[in-house]
């Protein structure tokens, strides 16, 4: 009898356990387990670092002496930014870069994609041809351009000399032109990406619209301005946002080709972070610049999310 009771208790507690791990609890457990690696990874490698870099930005630390030598200095790093010509230079260069790369790139890509989408034979050849630089290693492409831009022997300057320009710019080695040389390469390398996004947007526009318009006698220029351009609005704003943000994060070409020079003429925010953090080992100061970058990019992102939400509601 007692044995039976014990068994009954066991059975009930067992079934109680089973009831606790019922299907929906089990599903929730698996939900969290499947999400965990990504979540922990992002928190560990993105959220914790940005918070930690905020702390570091109020400190002075050269890394060598270990954690105990971290010195809290309050707003000193940010105050120092205001008197740092290199920082101003990098900020200015980021703005010049953005103001040129974003509109020029998008404008060229728009023309290119409209032509390729509907006005040429052999569409896939053109897609591939213009897309190749985008998938290629930017460092390898940079190496090619460093030869093309060679001040005395490079084909670009030899061409300019043959046109009668006796004293062409020294491009990457020229304080007045280094940033613009980088900009030319950047626009060239990203054009294929923007073109592909535009072509995807164009193929979402129904052909009937154009047929109806041409029956009504609209010229192709009118069709472009009245149909293509307005309906490409979301695509254009997407490209605008992504290009804007990536242009504030530009680093590879500059680090590889000019190291921010000559004489800091092509330095940008991320290059300043690299220089202060990993060459001068001023971790606090590099973190302060990082936070300026984060605030700029973060604000731009939030702004564009707001704009997008508004436009999708209306």
């Amino acid at each position, binding site marked *: 009898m007692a044995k039976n009771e014990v068994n009954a208790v066991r059975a009930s507690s067992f079934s109680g356990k089973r009831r606790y791990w019922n299907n929906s609890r*089990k*599903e*929730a457990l*698996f*939900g969290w387990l*499947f*999400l965990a*690696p*990504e979540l922990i*990874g*992002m928190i560990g*490698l993105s959220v*914790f*670092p*940005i918070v930690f*870099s905020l702390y*570091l930005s109020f400190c002075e630390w050269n890394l060598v002496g270990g954690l105990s030598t971290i010195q809290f200095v309050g707003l000193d790093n940010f105050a120092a930014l205001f008197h740092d010509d290199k920082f101003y230079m990098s900020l200015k260069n980021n703005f010049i870069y953005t103001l040129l790369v974003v509109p020029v790139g998008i404008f060229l890509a728009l023309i290119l994609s409209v*032509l390729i989408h509907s006005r*040429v*034979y052999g569409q896939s050849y*053109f*897609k*591939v*041809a213009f897309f*190749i630089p*985008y*998938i*290629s290693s930017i*460092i*390898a492409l940079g*190496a*090619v351009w460093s*030869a*093309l831009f060679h001040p005395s*022997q490079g*084909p670009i300057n*030899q*061409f300019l000399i043959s046109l009668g320009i006796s004293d062409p710019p020294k491009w990457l080695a020229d304080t007045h032109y280094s940033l613009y040389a980088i900009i030319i390469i950047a626009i*060239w390398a990203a054009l294929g990406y923007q073109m*592909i*996004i535009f*072509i*995807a*947007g164009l193929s979402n526009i129904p052909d009937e619209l154009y047929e109806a318009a041409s029956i009504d006698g609209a010229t192709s220029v009118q069709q472009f301005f009245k149909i293509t351009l307005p309906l490409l609005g979301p*695509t254009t704003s*997407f*490209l605008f946002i*992504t290009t804007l943000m990536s242009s504030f994060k530009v*680093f*590879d070409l500059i680090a590889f080709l000019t190291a921010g020079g000559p004489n800091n003429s092509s330095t940008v925010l*991320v290059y300043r*972070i*690299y220089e202060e953090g*990993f060459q001068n080992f001023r971790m606090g100061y590099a*973190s302060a610049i*990082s936070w300026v*970058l*984060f605030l700029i*990019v*973060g604000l731009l992102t939030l702004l564009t999310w707001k704009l997008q939400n508004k436009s999708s509601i209306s």
Partner: protein
Amino acid sequence: MNSTRIQYGKLVTTVIMGAVSVLFLIPLLWMISAASKLEKDVMTYPIQWIPPEWNLIENFKAVWLAKVPFSLFYWNSVKLAVIMMVATLIFSSMAAYSLTKLQYKGRSFMFALLLSFMIIPQEATLVPRYLLLKWLHLYNTHAGLILMGMFSIYFTFLLRQFMMGIHNEFIEAAKIDGAGHFTIYWKIMLPLCKPILATVGIIKFIWSWNDYQGPLIFLIKQNLYTIPLGVQLFRNDYADNYAVLMMASLAAIIPLLIIFIVLQKQVIKGIALGGVKG
């Protein structure tokens, strides 16, 4: 009559665009041409597109048998790109599966939270991530670099979009057959997601292969270098030998060109996916 006129216009545009595309590709054509020349012929002007004297094999040897261990860099790049690709596919698809097909409290909040992490630019966290790797004793190791490249909210987002389109009947049927959540993920969801996994995988491979910032900051030992750092070494060591530098650059690009030409539809679709979501 009307249609032939339009076709004629299209032909003219094609020819013009063809010329523009050649002009656009001149840097790459120049690279190929220079990589097959003697150094003394590289910078001659007007440009001799066909080398007057072929030096392709010698330049090839100079890159692959140089004191710079280029083949080791190649192997490092392949290894890292493949591991990061597989890891990203696994973690992103797991998260996407959780966010679409498993019901639990807080799921939509977690998705919003993950999305909000997207505003943190990787470039702004270089310093703390460098310190993190130092503390984990993973600085200057491939493992550290892999750790940095395993997680991606962007790819999770793309996979989630795709999984939302998969009917729940597949899952319900498997549940009736007694399959657990892991079996459903592994045996049902992943096979159904093959197209998007292929697309995401190719793009991740290309990005990892081309990554310059990560290896530049998180690696110092030369035998750990990847291809972009290898090209940089050639640029420093062979400052005045553009023929060899162009050969090294060509070697960095060729695997990507092959992948792209073979899988162009997948690549182009994958890139366009990011744009369509709006």
